Structure formats: structure tokens, C-alpha cells
């Protein structure tokens, strides 16, 4: 299977800031590729480099097996994108905006096709109203309609749920699943909300300060065998010494501030708890981190710990 997106050692250096630092990843056909990171992690810069909006300082980008910059126009015909806010011409209607951007994508859909597209994103009724009267959610949906109008193979959505209410977020989630499953599109979706990605992404890439932290299939990242335990005891030092001299050592215990982190299979937690109690270690708290979201929050607030985790 041919990779749709192949990024190798991509870097972007601004004067004093390395926005993207030797980033490599691959998006395969059919992926819903979740691109995670906090605000300012370098997601948007990377996406803009994929769309030729930002010139990379170093590295290679290939889309559909072609060098991006050498085949720019050919490649971009096959890419649809919503970049950050779905900004369109507010003094035009959704219909006119859609038509205009379709032409810019070198396709000339019929009126019927345009209306169908607007219907798909639920804007049919308001198709001829000026966009200035639209809610944020409607604009977002129009942005997606624009991204899809030329039937691209790759769809890039940059923070598509930003500023949306829960219903809007759910709508976008369903739309992404629809595009992936029914329309067989490849999607690259960036977000700073892991739980959103967790529900739609087939693969996840987490970056921080422009660097890749972790990348893998969503199912693997949520592997119960890799559950992270956050532990607080009345005597952390004694506890960590005990753990280090035991079979639990393979869980790579780490102490950070007043917490101990250790990995183990989810099923081993009761035994571990009993083992601690047997050794008179009194627990203040013990929390398994099931969801990648907690994990995500931690790693993006302390790379040191993550490095330990991903070792």
C-alpha cells in the first residue's frame, strides 16, 4: 500500500524557535491519522508545510508518492483542507463560497452537486444566506464542504472541533467517521483533545515542541498491558526502593514530585496493591491511567517522564 503522506526529518526554524524539529511520520491510505499536541506544539506548522503554505527549513514531504514542492499543483488537486478556523468570504453565501473554491480547485460542479455537498454538511437550507450570518459550527461545516468539493483523496482537518459546542463536536466526529468508512478517504486530523482523537483516529502521532513523542496505532497505544499507574504513598522513597528490588521493577518506576509512575498490565493492579499493603506501604492514592488522554496531558506537560515511558 502506498503511503499517502510521507514526512521525513521535517524541520521548521523560525528566528529563535524550532517550531518543527526533525519530524517524521507516514500516513497510509485509509488512515484517520490523529495529530496530537498542545497548542503551539507544531501541529499547524506541520500541516501548513504539507499544504505548501510554509516553506520547510529542512526535510522531505511526499504526498501520493510525489515530492510535494516539485509536483505542487498536481498534488494539491488531491488534497482538501480546513486550516485552523474555517475562514471564507463572509460577504458571499455558502453556495457562492463553495462554487468559488471549487473553481480554485479546478473543478466545476453543477448546481445540483453543490447543493448536494451543502446538504451533506447540513447547510442546504441556508445555502444562499451570507456566511456572515452563520454560527461557528455552520462555518466549520462549510469549511469541510469546501475541503471536499473537489473529491480529494487526502483530507486535512486542522483542529476541526475548535470553538464548537458538544453537538457540533459530535457532528464533526460522525462526519470524519463517515468520510473514512463510507467514502474511503484518508484523513489527517489535528487536535489538542485526545479523547476526540481516541474515538476516531486509527493512528496517533503526539508531538511536543516540534518533536515526535509517540506514534502508533490507536489500539496499541491503548494497550492494557501498558497501563500507567499513578501512585502516592505515605513514604514514596521506601516504596520506590522496594519496587526497585522486586519483580515490579520491569514496570520502570519513576518518582516525580510526590507521585510514583509505573507501568503494568491492567490485570496486575490488584496484585500490586496487595503486594504494597503486605509490605506496610500505605497508599494515599492509586490511579490507573486508562485513557490516553491523561497520559497525553502528562506527557505534554513533562517530556522527561514521557521519555521514560516510551523507552
Amino acid at each position, binding site marked *: 500500500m502506498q503511503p499517502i503522506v510521507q514526512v521525513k526529518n521535517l524541520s521548521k526554524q523560525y528566528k529563535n524557535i524550532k517550531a518543527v524539529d526533525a519530524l517524521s511520520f507516514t500516513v497510509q491510505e485509509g488512515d484517520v491519522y490523529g495529530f496530537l499536541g498542545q497548542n503551539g506544539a507544531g501541529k499547524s506548522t506541520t500541516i501548513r508545510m504539507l499544504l505548501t503554505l510554509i516553506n520547510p527549513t529542512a526535510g522531505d514531504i511526499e504526498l501520493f508518492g510525489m515530492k510535494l514542492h516539485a509536483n505542487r499543483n498536481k498534488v*494539491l488537486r488531491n488534497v482538501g483542507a480546513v486550516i485552523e478556523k474555517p*475562514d471564507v*468570504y463572509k460577504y458571499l453565501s455558502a453556495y457562492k463560497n463553495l462554487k468559488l473554491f471549487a473553481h480554485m480547485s*479546478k473543478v466545476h460542479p453543477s448546481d445540483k452537486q453543490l447543493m448536494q455537498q451543502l446538504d451533506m454538511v447540513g447547510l442546504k437550507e441556508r445555502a444562499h444566506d451570507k456566511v456572515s450570518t452563520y454560527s461557528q459550527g455552520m462555518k466549520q461545516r462549510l469549511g469541510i464542504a469546501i475541503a471536499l468539493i473537489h473529491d480529494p483523496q487526502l483530507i486535512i482537518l486542522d483542529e476541526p472541533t475548535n470553538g464548537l459546542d458538544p453537538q457540533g463536536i459530535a457532528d464533526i466526529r460522525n462526519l470524519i467517521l463517515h468520510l473514512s468508512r463510507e467514502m474511503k478517504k484518508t484523513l489527517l486530523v489535528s487536535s489538542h483533545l485526545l479523547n476526540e482523537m481516541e474515538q476516531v483516529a486509527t493512528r496517533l502521532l503526539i508531538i511536543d515542541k516540534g518533536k515526535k513523542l509517540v506514534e502508533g496505532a490507536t489500539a496499541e497505544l491503548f494497550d492494557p498491558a501498558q497501563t500507567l499507574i499513578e501512585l502516592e504513598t505515605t513514604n514514596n522513597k521506601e516504596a520506590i526502593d522496594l519496587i526497585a528490588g522486586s519483580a515490579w521493577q520491569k514496570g520502570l518506576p519513576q518518582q516525580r514530585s510526590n507521585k510514583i509512575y509505573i507501568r503494568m498490565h491492567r490485570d496486575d493492579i490488584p496484585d500490586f496493591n496487595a503486594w504494597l499493603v503486605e509490605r506496610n506501604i500505605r497508599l494515599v492514592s492509586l490511579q490507573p491511567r486508562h485513557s490516553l488522554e491523561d497520559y497525553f496531558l502528562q506527557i505534554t506537560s513533562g517530556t522527561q517522564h514521557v521519555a521514560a515511558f516510551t523507552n
Partner: protein
Amino acid sequence: MWQLLQIELYKIFRRPRTYIAFGATAVLITLLQFGLKVDGQEYADFMLQSLGNFDVQGKLLNGYMVCYLVLQLMLVHVPLLVTLISADMLSGEANIGTLRLALSKPYSRASVVLAKFFATCVYTLLLLIWVAVLALFVSMLVFGTNDLFLMKSEYIVLIKENDVFWRYCCAFGFAFVSLVTVASIGFFLSAFAENSIGPIVTTMSIIILFTVLGTLNIPMFDAINPYLFTSHMVIWKEFFDEKVTANNEAIAGTIQDLPAIFHSLLVLLAYIVVMIGATIFVMNKKDILS
């Protein structure tokens, strides 16, 4: 390219801002015409006082003269109005966020930039035609036509009625190049900004500054005068200056200083080429962060 140009024109003419210039010129020209209709004879008489022992007979305040007066006054205003659109072409889209979408489409940046520039030129042309209709044709209708009597600060030119219209055609053609020069400067500046106020104000300031520098007649500035586009924009007036015979008799159908017109035309065209070339260069290098 044609497709892009159509899109750009569509966008320009769907925006309310576009019509500000058309409205403003209409109001301004109409006011001037009204003023001249009411009070123009006094102005003419006042001017004639300086003629000493000469009398001028005939209808001085005719459509041709009104158009000339209007154009002289509009010389500062129309470029400012052109700036409103041209300096907004790139920065305005950066501001509303559509630039990033437009530039991620399968058209090269150069072609997007050129399409926008040509659309600006079309807008400028239409504005100029509008001005021509109002200032020339309406004046001709309202004031009638006659010979064109012009009092310049150093001398007087009298052009026969049947020798005037083609001069206006040429002058408007020249004015088009002048306005496109202004547009190209606004356009260039708009490549650097993410809202249109900055480039609009900067372009206007440049026009005003250059005009003032060109008008001051201070020897210090004489050296730079030939390089100021504003000094060349006023050369349209040369179309209304005739050659004379050895006996100082005006020769119909002649232009006093045609080489000066061509020279200015070349300077203005050079400005345009440099500005647009620079815009494409800047845009190609630019990271679109808006």
C-alpha cells in the same frame, strides 16, 4: 489564469468596499461640476485678470475645461481610492483568513498574485472609465464643448475644439498607467501585512510624501524628483500642450514634449514591473501564517 482572474473580479465586485470609490468619485465630480456651474465664471474671470492687456472671447467654461479642472483636482483622490482596493488585495485576504485556503489550492502563488493584480487593473480601468464618463462626457453634456483654454503657471495654451478629444483619450490612457503604478505599490505593500489598514495608509502616505517632495522645488530634492512616480503621474498634462511655430502660433494636433511623456510612461511601467516582480518574489518566499 483566466479562471483565477474571473474569481478575483467576482470577489472584488461583490464587496461593498469596491463601490466606495465609485460613489466617492461620483459625489466629488458632481460637486465640482455643480460648483463650476454656479461659480465657475467668477473663477474664470479671476484667472483672466492676470492676462493684462489681453481679452479672451468665447465660452471659456466649457465641458473640456471643466474636465481638465476636475482631473487636476482628482489627481490626488483617485489614486487614494485605487489604494483602497489594491492595498487590500493580499492583506485583506490574510486578514479574513482566506489567503491560506487560496494559496493551498493547485495554482502557483505567482499565478494567484498575478490574477489578483490583473483584477486590480481591471478595477482601476473601470474606475477610470467611470471618472471619464462623469468628468468628460457629463461635463461635455452639461457645459457644452468649445476650444480648451488653459492657463498654466508659466504660459497659456489654447487648443481648438476639434483638437481636444483625442488628447483626453491619451490622457486617460496615461492616467491608467499612473493609477496602475499606484495600485502596484499598494499591492506590493499588501504582501507584507495581515490587515489592510497598514498597507493602505502606507501607500497613501507615500503618495502624499512623494507629491509634496515633488512640489517643494527645493534644490535638495531635485535629484530624487526624477525617481518619484508621482512626478511622472502628472505628465498627462503634457497632452494638453502644443508645439508652436517660429511665430509662437500653436500647431494643431501636436504635443509639445512627446519624449517626456514616453519617458514618464517608461518610468511608470518600470515601477509596475518591479513592484509586481517583487510582490511575486516576496509571496513565493513568504510563510503564510495568517
